[in-house]
């Protein structure tokens, strides 16, 4: 492997260009017309313009990207995250054209990309999933099953979703009463009143394990992350480790992720996402992300690993001599996503020219960005403009460092979520780490912007 096509934009394109150059690889950036003047374009050895700004005519066209790789003599292609990164078709196109895909095989992407197929894999590997029943004939059967798995439970319509036929029950009595109602509702909505039952997770945390398959059958993990701070399923703050987990649970979580991806001889970086039930101290498999993720830096900060470099090394067929025992975590890291969005206007994207950009610096502060003063935030793409990452010996000190960094961060010309992040990170629930996936939307945001007094 000697020349890599970077098929992405923004901070991750820059991150990949730098990691590749550090390994002595040549880099070709495949950019849209909007990104020809980007920092990544400046630092890459060569830039080619795929097409116009809209992603579907540039970054989302697998044929264009692979053609660019071949025509510029690249023998490898790094897809970054988003765009085409989890399309099995891109990985296959690379495989068929002798271009090394820096990621899993197309077969692996397919195996974990389909939710039902992924659940079958998880089940076969003995990984825990949300306990659920088969179809239930009546309320008595439902109560019997719920008593077995424990309350609370939620009824679900066998024939459809969207909240119809869903009743949350905290005890046998309310389940018996709710069952008929749910069944009638399902019958009306889907023409079929058949119900099944699932354990209801009242307070859930989103936890995930960073893994790296070395391609020789071994799958290593780099600890877990807690990404419970979300808005509309978009992560906003990510931490490593997930300090709310008891150590025994953490160990089981790592094993579940390694078992799952080990069972398909997974190659390169991936993440296994789980739902963590705070009350029961139990976790359930959600899905696999077959790519490097936005939040990978927090895992790098606590392990000292360079995951992008490792991705390239694994793809080159020279996996590092790394053993699970060598991967030791230390301290606590937090990442906040800096977005060109206006929280006071319904998180409306705020593209435009950045007239002032004073990024925080200092010990344990890292900023992954492709923005500089004068940069234009394009309206064509995702609104994330930077990732502010801090690292400290423990969570309280990491939070303090983060708050200081957010305080020092000055951006003008466009609206950002920095003000919101300052308030979130000052909230008693955040300081006490009393969070779950619904916290931001149900506890914090309803009162955001109200005068305090």
């Amino acid at each position, binding site marked *: 492997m000697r020349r890599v096509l970077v098929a992405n934009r923004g901070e991750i394109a820059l991150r990949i260009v730098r990691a590749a150059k550090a390994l002595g690889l040549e880099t070709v950036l*495949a950019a849209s017309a909007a990104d020809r003047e980007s920092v990544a374009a400046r630092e890459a050895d060569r830039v080619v313009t795929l097409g116009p700004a809209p992603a579907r005519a540039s970054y989302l066209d697998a044929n264009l990207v692979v053609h660019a790789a071949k025509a510029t003599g690249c023998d490898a292609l790094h897809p970054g995250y988003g765009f085409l990164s989890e399309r099995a078709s891109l990985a296959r196109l690379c495989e068929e054209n002798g271009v090394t895909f820096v990621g899993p095989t197309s077969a692996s992407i397919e195996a974990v990309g389909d939710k039902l197929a992924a659940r079958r894999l998880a089940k076969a590997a003995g990984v825990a999933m949300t306990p659920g029943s088969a179809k239930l004939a009546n309320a008595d059967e439902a109560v019997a099953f719920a008593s077995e798995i424990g309350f609370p439970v939620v009824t679900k319509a066998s024939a459809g979703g969207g909240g119809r036929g869903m009743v949350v029950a905290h005890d046998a009595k309310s389940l018996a009463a709710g069952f008929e109602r749910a069944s009638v509702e399902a019958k009306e909505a889907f023409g079929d009143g058949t119900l099944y039952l699932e354990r209801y997770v009242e307070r859930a945390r989103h936890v995930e394990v960073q893994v790296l398959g070395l391609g020789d059958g071994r799958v290593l993990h780099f600890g877990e992350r807690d990404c419970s701070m979300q808005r509309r399923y978009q992560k906003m703050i990510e931490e490593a480790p997930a300090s709310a987990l008891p150590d025994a649970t953490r160990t089981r979580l790592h094993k579940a992720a390694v078992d799952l991806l080990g069972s398909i001889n997974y190659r390169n970086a991936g993440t296994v996402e789980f739902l963590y039930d705070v009350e029961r101290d139990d976790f359930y498999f959600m899905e696999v992300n077959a790519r490097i993720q936005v939040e990978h830096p927090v895992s790098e900060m606590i392990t000292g690993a360079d995951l992008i470099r490792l991705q390239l090394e694994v793809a080159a067929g020279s996996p590092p001599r790394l053993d699970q025992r060598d991967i030791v975590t230390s301290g606590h890291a937090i990442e906040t996503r800096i977005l060109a969005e206006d929280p006071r206007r319904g998180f409306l994207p705020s593209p435009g020219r950045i007239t002032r950009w004073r990024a925080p610096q200092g010990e344990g502060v890292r900023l992954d960005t492709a923005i500089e003063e004068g940069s234009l935030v394009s309206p064509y793409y995702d609104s994330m403009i930077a990732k502010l990452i801090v690292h400290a010996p423990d969570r309280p000190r990491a939070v303090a460092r983060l708050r200081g960094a957010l305080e020092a961060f000055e951006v003008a010309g466009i609206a950002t979520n920095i003000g919101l992040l300052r308030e979130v990170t000052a909230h008693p629930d955040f300081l006490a780490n009393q969070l779950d996936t619904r916290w931001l939307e149900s506890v914090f945001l309803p009162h955001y912007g109200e005068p305090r007094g």
Partner: protein
Amino acid sequence: MNDITPRDIEALLETFESSNWSEMKLKIDGLELFLSKSPDARSSVDFSEYADKAPAPVAAPAAPALAPQHGAAPDHWIAVRAPNLGTFYRSPKPGAPPYVALGQKVEPMTELCLIEVMKLFTSVFAGLSGTVRRVLVEDGELVEFNQLLFLIELDS
């Protein structure tokens, strides 16, 4: 430059296919599209010989001509640019004469070249009436989106 994408063209093709129209002509900005259900309307081109052509060798990249070259050409010489990245071919197949030669008169529907992306060939049309004054790319060269391909002197 226009915002028409390959997908838009696919949608147009589908509309045309399912219609009872015999011909369709469309002109938007720099794009011209001519569709016909008659097999005699255009001769088909055999691309098979292109398909196995080795990829262009990697050379130090020439600065792509993205901006108009000021002073290089008279005002009434109009640029024809690449609609996307791809490999540029001047003739319908290797060894065949090029679609157009210097000094040749062209009409809007005159084919100027092919742009190939993973063995998919797209024709680039002149889009105007005039005379070919410059061919700015070598056969088999990688071209980028918006790169200058031809300069055509507009009929006065």
